[in-house]
């Protein structure tokens, strides 16, 4: 794997990252390199810092970066991601699928998706789509996650079931086609059918130009989306990295043997 991987351009590089939440250290020297075309799974016990990592990369304001850096490839150069506002990061191709998607009453899903899509188009210098053209585009994306059109005219995530919310996240990912997708516990709260639909959607969005980082507690999701790398995050650091067989070993043995 290593020879081929080395040729692929680096998308994300996290170096010796230390992060505090309310003055408490959560990430304690984390290193991670993600290249285009790769799928990474970050696993670990509860409270190990998995969700923190994905939120910090997306720019959530509640986290204090104590030291270290996060760099992201923008126009063939590695740039400091921490200097960018959350919306600028999204415009450069970072996407976070939320563990708990937010309900936004009064804002229809359709107009939310359009506002978001057009903001990103504008930044990337492409022309915004007309409403009709956007609807057409949206339709094709909805098929990917087997979502009904009735969800478009409801408030964002309002009255959606847990599974519908997660599907809506993947729909947003499909519409925005990010270069780096962070899936934060996307499998939690999904029944087996919804899990299959979400995983299918993600698999169809995978390409050699983008990368996916899945944060998950369970091996289950990895039966559907096969990772190139599995990392074990414990006590704020990555303590073990391997291929998919590591996930199976974790499933069998738990985390204790690593800690």
């Amino acid at each position, binding site marked *: 794997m290593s020879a081929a991987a080395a040729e692929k351009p680096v998308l994300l590089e996290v170096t010796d990252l230390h992060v505090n939440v309310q003055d408490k250290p959560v990430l304690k020297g984390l290193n991670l390199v993600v290249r285009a075309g790769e799928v990474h799974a970050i696993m670990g016990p509860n409270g190990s810092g998995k969700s923190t990592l994905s939120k910090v990369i997306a720019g959530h304001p509640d986290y204090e970066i104590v030291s270290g850096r996060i760099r992201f490839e923008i126009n063939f150069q590695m740039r400091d991601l921490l200097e960018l506002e959350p919306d600028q990061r999204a415009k450069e191709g970072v996407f976070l699928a939320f563990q708990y998607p937010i309900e936004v009453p009064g804002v229809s899903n359709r107009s939310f998706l359009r*506002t978001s899509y057009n903001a990103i188009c504008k930044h990337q210098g492409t022309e915004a789509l007309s409403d009709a053209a956007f609807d057409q585009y949206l339709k094709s994306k909805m098929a990917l996650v087997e979502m009904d059109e009735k969800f478009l005219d409801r408030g964002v995530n309002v009255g959606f079931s847990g599974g519908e919310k997660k599907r809506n996240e993947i729909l947003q990912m499909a519409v925005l086609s990010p270069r780096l997708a962070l899936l934060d516990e996307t499998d939690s709260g999904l029944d087996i059918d919804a899990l299959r639909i979400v995983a299918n959607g993600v698999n169809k969005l995978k390409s050699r130009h983008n990368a996916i980082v899945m944060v998950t507690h369970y091996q289950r999701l990895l039966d559907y989306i096969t990772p190139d790398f599995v990392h074990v995050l414990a006590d704020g650091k990555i303590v073990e990295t391997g291929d998919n067989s590591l996930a199976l070993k974790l499933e069998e043995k738990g985390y204790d043997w690593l800690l």
Partner: protein
Amino acid sequence: MTGSSEVLHQTPSLSSQGALVLEAWKALGSDVGSSEVPWRQDLTQDFARGWPSAREEAWKYSPIAKLQESSLRPLADELRFELPEGVQACRMSAASGVVLDRVRDLMKISPAHRFNALAWLSDPWVVFVPRGVSPQAPLRVHAPRGEVNAWSCAGWLLVVDEDARLNVVEQYGAQVGALSWGTRMFLGSGSRVEHLRMQGAGVEAWGFAESIALVSENAHYVQVQVSTGGKMCREDADVRLQGGGGQAHLDATFMARNEQVLDHRTSIEHEVGDTQSHQLYKGLLADRSRGIFNGRVLIRRDAIGANAAQLSQNLLLSPTAEINTKPELQIDADDVKAAHGAAVGQLDKEHLFYLRSRGISEAKAKEVLLLGFALEALRGLQDAELMRVGRAWIETEANVLLTERDTSLGAEASRTSGSAT
């Protein structure tokens, strides 16, 4: 407020404004037959007693002492209708038969306070929708626009017969001076009324508006109130569910800025069982403005199976804005459902982050969230035209609220994680 209470509580003497109102009431009120307006005598006494005190619960938050210092001349004013096809109108004095019976039921109800009573100074118009009639176009009602030094007064009545449907767009608010505005309606069994009320008074104007709806069996009343104008405007909405299967939606968005006071009082009475009411009041308050929501729900003893839900949600867009929200639930029956809740806050930073993580700039995200918050009040409307009109009004006003000031809201959330040390 405490400093001035002594002054306000001195022995009532009739101020010049009070005298003007009383004089007008005596002169113009005589037009209206006392059989239709049985409470007129009480009000004359009310006015004669003097100006209401700010210590009274009903006026606790409203600066009506300032109004007392003005000298606005009450004026029985004219409104303007755009009547859709199949809908009739006449003066109250010309009403007869069943329409007159309904008018009498409606006019029996005493206004919540004397300033609302002024709306009924003269012979009001009565609009009648015959049985089963369901016009496509809405009834549009334009209140008088006000005059310098005048207190404009106008009211109208609506009688909707069985199984009829009507959509109503009311636009009111004096540009200057003051307006007392009255709207009373009767919904016959199986009828449906969607009622969009848009209050857009001028920045220095005063407003007092009442709406009363009597809802018969299986009738459905949807009121959407949008209040944005005026120096001080008060709304009293009174809905009485009088027949089984009757339903009411009473929703509102009010947006205040500068030193505006927008005061909303609602009262919903479940007189019989198997009735439903839903209330959603949304306040957006900027600068040093103040909003008031007082929501009374009364479930009478025999109203078994009544269902009442009330929610007051408010966003404070500046640290000096204020909201006073108070539910008043009185439940005299068993086996009913009643829920209420009130929330006051700023834009949620998790909401902001969610939008920003989708590439939407902070300023745009605030705009989207504020607008979404305000637009929720339109949830009960089915009619596309009312929806369009209400939406346009809210969008325009939300824009004013956002662009005229550099909102400090969510300043916390704008801090990014980029501050490496």
